[in-house]
């Protein structure tokens, strides 16, 4: 047991920070989101093809580097610091996790290879227009038409959906004799698939809505509501939380810097307890999130090493990390606006970008309230009343 980063892991972080500070500043982000892609494709290619980031946690057999969730979390945390909005989280964080937890098959392994090499990006379509993270929210259906499996319905809140090369779609399995949820892969160019980019409050990362009209040409990766889908989503929560952690740390630093310079009443406002104490509370949230993310990343690696014993702890850690990072990030970003005063409310200043990212990621993969309810069940609050 050594709950501290290795030399190699520190090096990964340093390299990533250096690269991103050069190529992915928030000033650059503001320009990149205005592109039709919503991000800079050359930057994403550099991250994936040159630096090999997309395959960092993928097995070497798929062309990845065979490292783990801790390393991937480091990369996501660093991307969160600059609110990077390209398809890395969607593809390497979420879609890859779902693929890895799906039963091995030729088509799955081919998809993993495409992601590892950076040749393609993928996104998960796992909820409908409510955006909630439960089976009821899934609005896509897997049906059979003329002996062929195809998709009906829609999916929404698909991260970077309009630039993804393929999708992993969660759908109710309505084929004869089937039930539960199925995970289906479909290419972006499939006939009968409409992709609409959505205008969203969060300016840093685009969403798309997918409409399925007898969309065929798909590969069924998992069916019958296999636990693999749930595990994949849990691992995705850890990835998202790592990104949130980086963002909340960055907005804390932004705010500390500002309050350490802004002078009112003849002294920097960061010398007033009203400001200092709120910043201290923000730091408590950041450190709590950090402990949660690093631990949860280790839990993912332990689970992957031994799925038979790690599943319960994974379920707990994934819910916990989503609760802590989502609510923590929102609090910290909200306080950042308050402590900046008027300038914090402007379009020009960066605080609102963090705040809006916090809101968008709060709902993504399940609202904290939903995850707290999951935790309540996991820790035995559903059990029959006991006499004491």
């Amino acid at each position, binding site marked *: *047991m*050594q*709950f*501290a*980063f*290795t030399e190699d*892991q520190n090096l990964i972080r340093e390299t990533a920070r250096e690269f991103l500070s050069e190529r992915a500043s928030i000033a650059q982000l503001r320009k990149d989101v205005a592109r039709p892609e919503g991000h800079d494709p050359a930057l994403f290619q550099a991250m994936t093809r040159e630096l090999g980031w997309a395959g960092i946690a993928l097995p070497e057999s798929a062309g990845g580097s065979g490292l783990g969730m*801790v390393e991937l979390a480091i990369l996501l945390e660093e991307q969160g610091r600059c609110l990077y909005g390209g398809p890395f989280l969607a593809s390497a964080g979420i879609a890859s996790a779902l693929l890895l937890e799906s039963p091995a098959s030729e088509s799955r392994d081919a998809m993993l290879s495409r992601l590892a090499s950076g040749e393609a990006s993928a996104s998960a379509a796992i909820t409908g227009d409510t955006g909630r993270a439960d089976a009821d929210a899934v609005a896509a259906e897997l049906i059979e038409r003329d002996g062929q499996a195809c998709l009906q319905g829609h999916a929404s809140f698909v991260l970077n959906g309009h630039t993804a090369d393929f999708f992993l779609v969660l759908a109710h399995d309505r084929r004869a004799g089937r039930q539960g949820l199925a995970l289906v892969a479909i290419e972006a160019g499939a006939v009968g698939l409409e992709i609409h980019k959505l205008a969203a409050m969060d300016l840093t990362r685009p969403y798309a809505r997918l409409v399925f009209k007898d969309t065929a040409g798909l590969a069924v990766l998992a069916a019958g509501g296999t636990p693999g889908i749930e595990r994949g989503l849990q691992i995705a929560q850890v990835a998202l939380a790592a990104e949130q952690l980086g963002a909340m740390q960055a907005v804390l630093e932004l705010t*500390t810097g500002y*309050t*350490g310079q802004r002078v009112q009443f003849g*002294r*920097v406002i*960061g*010398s007033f*307890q009203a*400001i*200092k*104490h709120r*910043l*201290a*509370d923000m*730091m*408590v949230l*950041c*450190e*709590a999130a*950090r*402990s*949660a993310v*690093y*631990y949860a*990343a*280790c*839990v993912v690696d*332990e689970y992957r090493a031994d799925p038979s014993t790690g599943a319960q702890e994974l379920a*707990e850690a994934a819910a*916990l990390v989503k*609760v*802590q990072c989502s609510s923590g990030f929102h609090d910290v970003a909200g306080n950042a606006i308050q402590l900046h005063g008027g300038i914090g409310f402007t379009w020009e200043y960066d605080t609102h970008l963090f705040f809006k990212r916090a809101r968008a990621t709060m709902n993504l993969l399940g609202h904290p*309230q939903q*995850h*707290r*309810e999951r*935790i*309540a069940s996991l*820790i*035995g*609050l*559903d*059990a029959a*009343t*006991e*006499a*004491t």
Partner: protein
Amino acid sequence: MKIRFTAAEEAFRAECAAWLGEQISGPFADIRGIVSQTFRAEQRMEWERALGRARWSVIGWPEKYGGRDASLAEQVIFAEEYARSGAPGRVGHLGTELAGPTILHFGNDLQRERFLLPIARGEEFWCQGYSEPNAGSDLSNVRTRARLEQGPNGPEWVIEGQKIWTSLAQFADWCFVVCRTEEGSKGPAGISYLLVPMKQKGVTVKPIRQMTGDAEFNETFFDGARTRAEYCVGKPGEGWKVAMGTLAFERGVSTLAQQMTFRNELELLIGAARANGAAKDPLIRQRIAEAWVGLRIMRYSALRMLSRATSGSLGAEALTYKLHWATWRKKLGELAMDVVGAPGELCTGEGYELADLPYLYLFSRADTIYGGTNQIQRNIIAERALGLPKEPRGDR
């Protein structure tokens, strides 16, 4: 970064569990699960001696001082198994967690030889002489003073002054006293860290009754109390550094044991919620889940803190730790009362006897005060971790 324990460490876990289980279900069954610091103190001092005899009292210390040179992982494991066994709160903790590590780290060989083994063996108990009526949050304002005098067996410190909130002073053999040894000095300069015997004519202990009804802490008066000149840890006049070092040990492995107590409290609360139906209330469920999250995170932060301890610097996780747990436990106390409802307002017996959860509710109001109030913690975080300007003083 790894969280898994090795097979050897798991074997060590089995060894701890076996010994603890045997003791707590056997000879020490009467003191199982006691949280209050003073309840059945005599038996618990016997328990400290039993731990010492089996070399379980201070496993992280060097073997020659009664420890086992245990690794961090082993200390984590022991803390977990200690709590799982239902063993009681440690009445020797001021010696094993604060005085001992301070003497080990800042003391000299004479002091280490004299004091460490009796602490490890549960033969001598300690208390902490820090706060005074006019030096609470502003600890460097201490007025208790000591001067060197020639005694019958060589030079001695003679101590005059008053300490307050001295927990467990009524059972203590020794006190580590922060006092002023340079006439006219102010603030951190001129302070010394003295080790003073409690069982002597010049020391008077008066219990203070707390809002819980217990009298766990005391006023301690030093009126010409004496200790040998060489029982000063660090150089005379340079005790502030030592005093702050002691506080850093509060963030050591003992935090894990403390968390286990918290875990037992949360489990008690969950049991109560299931029994009275509160567990069905969606808002209560949210709050219990939140408490569970906060407790888990405490554990992860402690592991981060301990994993870096070798570097000697306090990381951000260490500086934020006290504020996190104190705030958490106060909320837990409130949640406990909301779960229990009105029955929690009734005493379980005469003499202000309270059930565990209502007791927790009251006691947790102290958590955000002792060991540095939440407000002082926020100053520390803002100044040391975030680099913001220091608070101005009104008097210097």
